[in-house]
């Protein structure tokens, strides 16, 4: 009995250190995810609407050119005290070091978002390109269902605005390629 209590209490310490969104599993998923630039403002707006406070957002993205660079970034990631424990643990696994991380970033061009309010980590977002499916996905985890819901509502409005915006992009890109091919051939 003592052993079980001890194990449970030991486990609860770890669970307690993992942010709330992991326990609740509160997540907003988007596929395809298209808009990297407005995420910080949407997160800030959501937090302001729900809690009346202003939060900071960090966006992290980097093409890694060497294994050493990948190692350096991993160390930086792991040593950031604002980073949720489970992410630090994932990043510090031996199988996720160096070359593997470099290869992963080359193919998926990941973008990482972190929403913080003083020492509180209220949002983690990961946006990655799936090279096989040729689609970009975005997952955003929140420590509060209220903020998550607000974020979803604002995102829905922003997504609505994008309807029809993509029409004609493919034609424009083909045009750029064709003109260059033509001028290059001259």
């Amino acid at each position: 009995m003592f052993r079980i209590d001890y194990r449970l209490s030991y486990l609860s310490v770890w669970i307690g250190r993992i942010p709330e969104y992991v326990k609740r599993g509160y997540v907003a998923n988007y596929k395809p995810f298209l808009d990297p630039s407005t995420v910080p403002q949407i997160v800030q707006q959501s937090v302001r609407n729900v809690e009346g406070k202003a939060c900071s957002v960090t966006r992290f993205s980097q093409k890694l050119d060497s294994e050493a660079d990948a190692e350096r970034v991993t160390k930086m990631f792991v040593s950031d005290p604002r980073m949720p424990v489970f992410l630090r643990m994932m990043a510090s696994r031996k199988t996720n070091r160096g070359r593997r991380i470099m290869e992963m970033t080359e193919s998926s061009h990941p973008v990482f978002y972190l929403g913080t309010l003083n020492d509180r980590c209220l949002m983690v977002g990961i946006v990655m390109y799936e090279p096989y499916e040729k689609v970009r996905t975005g997952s955003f985890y929140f420590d509060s269902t209220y903020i998550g819901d607000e974020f979803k509502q604002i995102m829905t409005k922003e997504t609505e605005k994008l309807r029809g915006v993509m029409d004609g992009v493919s034609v424009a890109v083909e045009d750029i390629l064709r003109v260059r091919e033509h001028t290059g051939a001259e």
Partner: protein
Amino acid sequence: MQNRDHTTQSLISLYHSTPRMILYDKDLSIDDLDSDVHAVANTSSGTQLNPMEVVLESLINKLTEKISEENLTRSQDTVLLNSRFRRMAMERLVEQARADNQFLTEIHQAWLHELEEYVLHEMKGSLTADELVFRVAMRYRISTSSAARALKSTRRARSQTSET
């Protein structure tokens, strides 16, 4: 003329370096940026150029990063964006646009040319239109709708240039 070329080149060269970490301070909002962009666009011939608001949105954001690097972080890797730095970026562009009537026309063309070069580079791999728009939005610090608008405008801008 030489001064304008130099300014244009230095602004375009901002896109050649990309900080890995961007910290968005608490006092940023989309509405502020909209009004900033209009303030610059209305200074001279900006309103006749399409998509000038997109070009300015991008330039203000990149210049804000540069100002942050110069005044605060001293690092190309990490920048902090706040309303003070953005205000400074906007003021620099307004000043330039007021001092030189042709500045906006020049930077508009140079920006679209830089965008085309980037598209050509990225399309060496087989990217979908969605992913290309995402990458353009990331690189040029603009919203996705602005990125799509910019890509669609390159064709029109090219035909306008050839007419003139």
